[in-house]
């Protein structure tokens, strides 16, 4: 009898041991997760995946109120949010959200209102199983009134309930390797109201996946299936029997061939078919034209992609990677055949990097290529093959720790080859080549200097005689020196200069409607940052742009456009406390377009603005309570601005109060 009693006690103890929650590894986990708005599912999944048991307090209630206001040139509005998280003793995690957002537009007669109520519950049933339930009610109402008085409403009201069951478990330290399994089922019901129709949808789905690791091999597989049943009701008719089926399969293998080489293969296959209430004249068709523009449409969407890749570091200083993929993505419709498309892509890419034995020189070579066939048959003549090839080389050499040279070069060829050349003779080639160099130097600890130079050559070439009149070559030369000088703790000076020369030459000048031309730009930026006192920052920026452009034949330049622009920004920042600052900013811009013809006056345009305001970022307590306020008065002068745009408040605030 004693033996039996002992055995019974041992069994009960073992059962209790297996079902009782273990002591948490990290007591702070639940607190951290609950503060995260998306924490509920994350916590449930974390518990399931890691078999992590935590000590649950009896009750944990964490409500947070947020308020945001904003008033800008284009709109003013307010958003209120109430987020509540509740953890119950039986480990139920409840999330409840209320949101209300409203915007009134100032420059147009438009109003936007968004409301959301969301409740989610996640109930861990076991360490590897949890159930979830979500209720969501979202309402969107946008109203815009055109100048003629026409009212345009956009209504999107969605009410949905969803539930699911998830299983997620990892088996480690098995003789044959480790296995990770996950599976789930989900179901939902949705009522979607639009201004012109209401969709009622029931959906259900299952999914599952497995990852199996053994030796140097990892195998993965996932599959899912989803089905929906839908009904669409308009003012004119009810479309019954709508719905969709979707299934997908993903499989992959990764082999660690050697310690430094990996080969992986990945394949995805997706099949989707849906019968739904579509609308003509684009996605806003029914919204604008009413229920008569709604019609049933069937869409078939198969897609697949297979990727093979390999990477290896043959020795310490040399490594390479290559990958290739084939992809097919099709959309086929029963009614709107003009939207049919089937895109097939075959592409490859690779790179190799090398570091010289003396370690101060590194080089990387990248190559890419591929073919894309965009099949738009039968209702379009735009079906086209696109080809792409690219080679890029980057070399970096460090002469000494304070002097570095970076060289880059690349060539890319893009070609388009149309199927129906008689009706669509837009076959074209584009060849881009560029080379650039940048020399960076830090001769003194407080002085950084750099100079970069680049040359780009682009060839634009249409093939057909009906399109080739503007075939051309564009050459672009750029030189950009600059420096930053940190004079002392009170003063920093930064200057950059830039010269760019763009020369475009037409191949068939007689047939072209354009002339060969030269476009030249000179830019100069000068910035002073001054800190005269601990709590005061001053900034002065001056920018100059000098530009001209003209026809260029036989080394003779005939200027037909010459202009320059000068801009200044003067800003002051006074921060009496860390959380509080006053600021002011003045911008001024003057653009002069010189009269080229004799007797033609210069056209001068000046614009500018003054912005004065205050900003406060205040936080108190240890719960994350905060109040941020930004408020500025803006006055602008601009000949093309309306009165409303010349004088306005720019303000925003954020108030967050965790209880």
């Amino acid at each position, binding site marked *: 009898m004693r033996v039996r009693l002992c055995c019974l006690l041992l069994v009960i103890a073992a059962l209790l041991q297996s079902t009782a929650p273990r002591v948490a590894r990290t007591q702070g986990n639940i607190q951290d997760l609950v503060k995260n708005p998306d924490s509920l599912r994350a916590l449930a999944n974390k518990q399931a995946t890691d078999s992590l048991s935590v000590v649950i307090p009896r009750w944990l209630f964490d409500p947070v109120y947020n308020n945001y206001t904003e008033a800008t040139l284009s709109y003013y509005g307010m958003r209120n949010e109430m987020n509540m998280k509740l953890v119950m003793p039986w480990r139920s995690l409840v999330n409840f959200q209320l949101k209300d957002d409203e915007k009134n537009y100032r420059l147009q007669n438009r109003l936007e209102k968004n409301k959301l109520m969301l409740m989610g519950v996640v109930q861990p049933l076991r360490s590897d199983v949890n159930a979830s339930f979500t209720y969501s009610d979202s309402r969107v109402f946008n109203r815009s009134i055109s100048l003629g008085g026409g009212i345009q409403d956009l209504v999107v009201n969605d009410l949905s309930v969803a539930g699911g069951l998830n299983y997620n478990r990892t088996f480690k330290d098995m003789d044959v390797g480790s296995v990770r399994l996950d599976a789930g089922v989900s179901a939902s019901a949705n009522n979607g109201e639009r201004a012109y129709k209401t969709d009622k949808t029931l959906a259900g789905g299952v999914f599952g996946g497995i990852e199996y690791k053994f030796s140097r091999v990892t195998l993965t597989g996932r599959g899912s299936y989803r089905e929906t049943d839908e009904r669409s009701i308009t003012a004119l008719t009810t479309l019954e029997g709508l719905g969709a089926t979707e299934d997908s399969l993903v499989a992959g293998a990764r082999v660690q061939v050697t310690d430094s080489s990996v080969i992986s293969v990945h394949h995805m296959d997706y099949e989707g078919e849906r019968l739904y209430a579509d609308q*003509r*004249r684009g996605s806003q068709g029914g919204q604008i034209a009413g229920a008569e523009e709604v019609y049933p449409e069937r869409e078939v969407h198969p897609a697949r992609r297979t990727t093979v890749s390999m990477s290896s570091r043959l020795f310490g200083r040399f490594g390479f990677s290559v990958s290739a993929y084939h992809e097919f993505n099709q959309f086929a419709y029963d*009614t*709107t*055949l*003009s939207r049919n498309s089937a895109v097939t892509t075959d592409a490859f890419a690779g790179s190799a990097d090398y570091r010289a034995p003396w370690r101060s*020189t590194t*080089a990387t*070579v990248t190559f890419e290529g591929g073919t894309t066939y965009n099949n*738009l*048959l*039968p*209702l*379009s*003549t*735009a079906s086209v093959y696109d080809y792409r*090839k690219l*080679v*890029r*080389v980057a*070399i970096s*050499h460090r002469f000494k720790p304070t002097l570095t040279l970076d*060289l*880059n*070069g*690349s*060539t890319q*060829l893009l*070609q388009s080859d149309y199927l*129906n050349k008689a*009706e*669509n*003779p*837009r*076959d074209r*080639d584009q*060849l881009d*080549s*560029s*080379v650039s160099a940048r020399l960076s130097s830090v001769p003194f600890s407080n002085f950084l200097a750099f100079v970069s130079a680049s040359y780009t050559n682009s*060839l634009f*070439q*249409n*093939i*057909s*005689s*009906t*399109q*080739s*009149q503007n*075939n051309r070559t564009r050459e672009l030369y750029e030189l950009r020196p600059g420096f930053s000088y940190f004079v002392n703790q009170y003063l920093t000076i930064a200057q950059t200069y830039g010269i760019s020369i763009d020369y475009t030459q037409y*191949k*068939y000048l007689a*047939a072209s409607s354009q002339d060969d031309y030269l476009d030249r730009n000179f830019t100069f930026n000068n910035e002073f940052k001054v800190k005269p006192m601990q709590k005061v920052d001053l900034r002065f920026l001056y920018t100059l742009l000098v530009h001209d452009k003209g026809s260029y034949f036989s080394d003779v330049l005939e200027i037909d456009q010459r202009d320059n622009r000068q801009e200044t920004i003067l800003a002051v920042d006074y921060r009496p406390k860390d959380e509080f600052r006053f600021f002011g900013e003045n911008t001024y811009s003057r653009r002069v377009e010189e009269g080229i013809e004799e007797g033609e006056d210069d056209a001068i345009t000046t614009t500018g603005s003054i912005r004065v305001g205050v900003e406060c970022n205040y936080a108190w307590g240890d719960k994350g309570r905060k109040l941020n306020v930004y408020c500025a008065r803006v006055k602008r002068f601009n000949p093309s601005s309306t009165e409303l745009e010349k004088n306005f408040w720019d303000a925003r605030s954020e108030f967050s109060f965790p209880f």
Partner: protein
Amino acid sequence: MVLVLGLAVGGPACLFETREDQPPDDSSCPVTILNTPDAVFEAMEEALERCQQDANYERALSANFVFSPTLTDSLDQDFIGTGAFDNWTKEVELDVTNSLLAEARSLNMSFSPSRLINQNTFVRFRVPYTLDVVTKAAPGDTAYYAGVAEFDVRNEGGNWRITFWNEVETVQGKSTWGYLRGVLRLRG
């Protein structure tokens, strides 16, 4: 280092060789791509106004093209009993258009289409239009035509083409393009 960069920029010639382009043909107009229903109006303007050739115009017309005048034009005293608008096919339309191009020194036209019916392979436009003609015989004078027509445009093998030009309204004080058509056809 420079050699490697040079290889990248220059690229192996065989890999980065572009195709040979065809020199522009002065005698032909750019082909208007008829990949949208609205492209037919661009094709007509390109053909008649800018190129003064019927190539793009011919492409914009379906083989089953039909023209119908307004009731006012068909009952006009100039055309009663003449059969000027009878059996108006694509061939007739091209003949009349060539007559117009032969007589005109310049043409200036505008179309303001809006969609009445918008279907998968069929669109019906309502189009107020104007046509200004300066003839070679009287280069100092401009004849003004205007009206409102409905254009039926269909997708035929990927190209949108006009199947029916139906004149529906006249404009006060101006003759329609249909009236001009009748005059040109009677002139032979």
